[in-house]
């Protein structure tokens, strides 16, 4: 039980991190939280969770086919888990998709607004219908547990029909998922683009889906019911001794769990399908002539090779080799390899294959990883919930469930505190929440809150209720200055003196001329109005007849004169006095810099202060520390800003 508990805690932590990521995605938008761009519009959420997630959840339809249609009764015990996996896989795909689409609140649109020419439309409907089908198939298990026998019996009676409908829907949309990428013949890398994509998708999904349920069954056995797969002794080796040696009876005879023959049978079928997939893939490469790309030695060709080995090669080797296939560990490795190969294949087709055309690279952002994994973790939790509370797998372990354990005096180990003091799941989960959510928040909030850049237009001035003082944070960097507002007003002559200062514009003040350039005080701005120039040239009576192309600048801006290309220089060269505060030599784009609010304020305040300092004979009035009250500021100033003053 301890291992399950630890697993659950980890899953909760991941799911909560995903929750935070999802929150930020809804709060700040797609652009801020993901690394998606116009060049790579489909990212991890769609490809990994939706396309690969659905592909790997084919178990429901393949096992249904084997059990109901082909009447292979020996696979019957895997039926319920397969349906559960399909249900959860589709559910988690839909959940991730909800975050991925730009306008999640319109998820219902495809129900009403149809475009039957779209593959995505077909995928949508098949997925929704098949999700319903899996829910119906899962129904009897749940209703039996809830003691609603009549519904359960009814659902049981229509099971065959439902399975047939489900298989049809499944085969439709698995191929449609491949067809989604048929529309991009120009863009997808030729290694992956093929007119047979729908066929490849459905075959690989069938094979890997079977492997996935083998993997889940083995993992489940490790967690709950070890003997059913690993046998009473439960040894774990990859290579077994050759059969001949074991038959010799030298004590190396190995007892295997009773479910192993079933799993080996399923894996053999899966591997056959994957082998067919591999052969088809190679034939297709040869026929279409894309095999040249395979030997080109680009990273795509390596990726393709890796994918083929993971998906078809390694599993085939492990399952076909009689020395390995009877070992649960080796079988698990084969299954894992096939599943990861399938994932890689879908990521290739959906993401990596587009890099060459788009000329851009995409690596998922933290939030994308967090949400993707979080959704999967949530599905894992749901899986554990179902297998623990409903008769999905065999139920032997339930009978062996022991007492929680006696409170011994060794109250000191952390695991003891973690498992006894925090005995209720709620308490443990809330502790995880308290640790994980702020951590994820603390990491992601600063990362994403600034990314949308909308904040910067808000005023940088705080005002107290007595209006005696202002708190100014011009550059929004957190360095604030307290400004005695009431004092200034009084000193400048009371009510009528407002305009002597308030001709300056505040950030976001759109009524004054300053806004034209200092539109976003903090961000870089572009001052040169190219449109205005071209329009002026074209409309000018004086310049009639002159061709206003890009080469026409020289008509006005003669060589050697001011405002010509030769004599142009960075803003910094002229506005040096305005930008003395910041180091501008960091190699950023010169175009970007204009006077910031802080610098504008400095230029307005400091001269006046210096002037007044003379008048009222208070030497320190012009110092930085008058406003900033920081000794460091004074040091910086004495070194940089006013070297010639002292």
């Amino acid at each position: 039980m301890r291992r399950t508990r630890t697993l659950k805690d980890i899953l909760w932590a991941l799911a909560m991190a995903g929750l935070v990521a999802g929150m930020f995605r809804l709060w700040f938008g797609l652009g801020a939280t993901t690394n998606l761009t116009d060049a790579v519009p489909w990212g991890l959420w769609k490809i990994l969770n939706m396309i690969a997630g659905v592909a790997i959840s084919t178990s429901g339809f393949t096992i249904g086919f084997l059990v109901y249609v082909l009447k292979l009764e020996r696979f019957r015990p895997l039926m319920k888990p397969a349906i559960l996996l399909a249900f959860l896989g589709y559910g988690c795909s839909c959940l991730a998709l909800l975050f991925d689409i730009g306008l999640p609140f319109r998820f219902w649109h495809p129900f009403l607004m149809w475009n039957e020419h779209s593959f995505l439309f077909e995928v949508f409907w098949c997925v929704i219908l098949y999700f319903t089908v899996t829910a119906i198939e899962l129904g009897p298990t749940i209703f039996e547990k809830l003691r609603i026998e009549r519904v359960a019996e009814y659902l049981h009676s229509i099971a065959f029909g439902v399975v047939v409908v489900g298989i049809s829907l499944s085969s439709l949309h698995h191929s449609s998922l491949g067809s989604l990428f048929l529309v991009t013949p120009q863009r997808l890398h030729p290694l992956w683009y093929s007119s047979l994509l729908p066929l490849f998708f459905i075959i690989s999904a069938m094979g890997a889906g079977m492997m996935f349920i083998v993997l889940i069954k083995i993992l489940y056995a490790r967690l709950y019911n070890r003997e059913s797969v690993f046998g009473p002794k439960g040894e774990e080796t990859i290579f077994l001794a050759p059969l001949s040696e074991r038959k010799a009876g030298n004590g190396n005879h190995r007892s295997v769990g009773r479910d192993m023959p079933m799993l080996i049978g399923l894996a053999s079928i899966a591997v056959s399908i994957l082998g067919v997939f591999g052969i088809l893939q190679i034939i297709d490469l040869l026929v279409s002539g894309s095999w040249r790309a395979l030997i080109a030695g680009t990273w795509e060709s390596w990726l393709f090779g890796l994918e083929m080995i993971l998906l078809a090669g390694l599993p085939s080797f492990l399952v076909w080799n009689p020395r390995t296939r009877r070992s649960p560990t080796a079988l698990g490795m084969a299954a894992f390899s096939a599943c990861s190969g399938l994932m890689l294949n879908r990521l290739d087709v959906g993401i990596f294959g587009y890099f060459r055309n788009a000329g851009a690279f995409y690596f998922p952002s933290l939030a994308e990883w967090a949400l993707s994994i979080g959704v999967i973790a949530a599905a894992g939790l749901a899986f554990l919930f179902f297998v623990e509370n409903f008769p999905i797998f065999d139920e032997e372990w339930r009978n062996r469930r022991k007492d929680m354990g006696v409170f011994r005096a060794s109250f000191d180990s952390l695991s003891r505190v973690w498992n006894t003091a925090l005995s209720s799941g709620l308490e443990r989960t809330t502790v995880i929440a308290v640790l994980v959510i702020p951590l994820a928040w603390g990491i992601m909030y600063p990362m994403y809150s600034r990314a949308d850049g909308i904040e910067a237009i808000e005023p940088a001035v705080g005002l107290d209720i007595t209006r005696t003082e202002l708190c100014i944070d011009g550059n929004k960097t957190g360095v604030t200055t307290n400004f005695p507002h009431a004092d200034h007003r009084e000193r400048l002559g009371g009510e009528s003196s407002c305009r002597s200062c308030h001709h300056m514009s505040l950030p976001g003040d759109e009524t004054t001329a300053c806004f034209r350039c200092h539109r976003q005080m903090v961000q870089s701005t572009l001052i040169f109005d190219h449109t205005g120039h071209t329009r002026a040239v074209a409309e000018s009576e004086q310049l009639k007849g002159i061709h206003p192309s890009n080469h026409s600048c020289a008509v006005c801006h003669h060589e050697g004169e001011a405002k010509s290309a030769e004599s142009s220089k960075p803003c910094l060269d002229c506005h040096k006095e305005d930008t003395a505060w910041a180091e501008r030599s960091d190699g950023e784009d010169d175009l970007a810099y204009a006077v910031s609010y802080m610098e504008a304020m400095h230029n307005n305040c400091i001269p006046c202060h210096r002037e007044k300092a003379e008048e009222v004979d208070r030497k320190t009035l012009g110092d930085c520390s008058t406003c900033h009250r920081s000794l460091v500021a004074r040091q910086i100033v004495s070194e940089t800003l006013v070297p010639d003053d002292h």
Partner: protein
Amino acid sequence: MEAWLDFARGPLFAFTFGIMLAGLCRQVALQIYFLSVNKGRRLKEVPWMTMVRDSLSWVIPIRHIEPGTKIFSIASFLMHIGLIIVPLFLLDHVVRWERFLGLNLPAIGKGVADILTLLTIACSLLLLAYRTFRARHRMVSGPMDYFLLMLLLLPFVSGYLAAHPAINPAPWDVMMLTHILSAEALFIMVPASKLAHVVLFFFDRISAVHWQLRPGAGDKVAEALFGEEAKI
């Protein structure tokens, strides 16, 4: 130093503040969960109004100033006033709240803030003195009580000094970093220490509910400890 200040003001603040919020939410959630699930059927009988009334009566605790603890009561009351008002409504903090959470709070003037800060510092020192010099207080105080009180003093003292350069012995940013870091340490301590009474002071009043023991629990405990045929 600038980088440190930025880090302390940015991610670290978000993280520690989040820890505080999440931790306090956890406390409240567990209490409400307990009331609604463990005591399920009696949730309506929880004396909510009594709890609210009792809690509010301590907001202005004039009725509660006992003769034996007059100075102590008044000092702790004043300290709490400063503790709540200054971090929330000081002008510099208001700007930060607005930036950070979008809260638009009114700000108090600098003079008021100074007075409250000094009052809080003085009262905290008084409480510290009580804990140090009075035997009865010493008796119930552990290391954590002294530590928390001093940790509480730190942001107030450093903040005051940072705002008044004339009496500030250290560089401004050192003071400011101390101010921020100590406040963040306090944030982390809030849900993990007795400071959690910022929210729990409300729930501590439901002892009437806790007196309603769980039926059958005594028998189960006895059975677990003494075996099935437990005798009195």
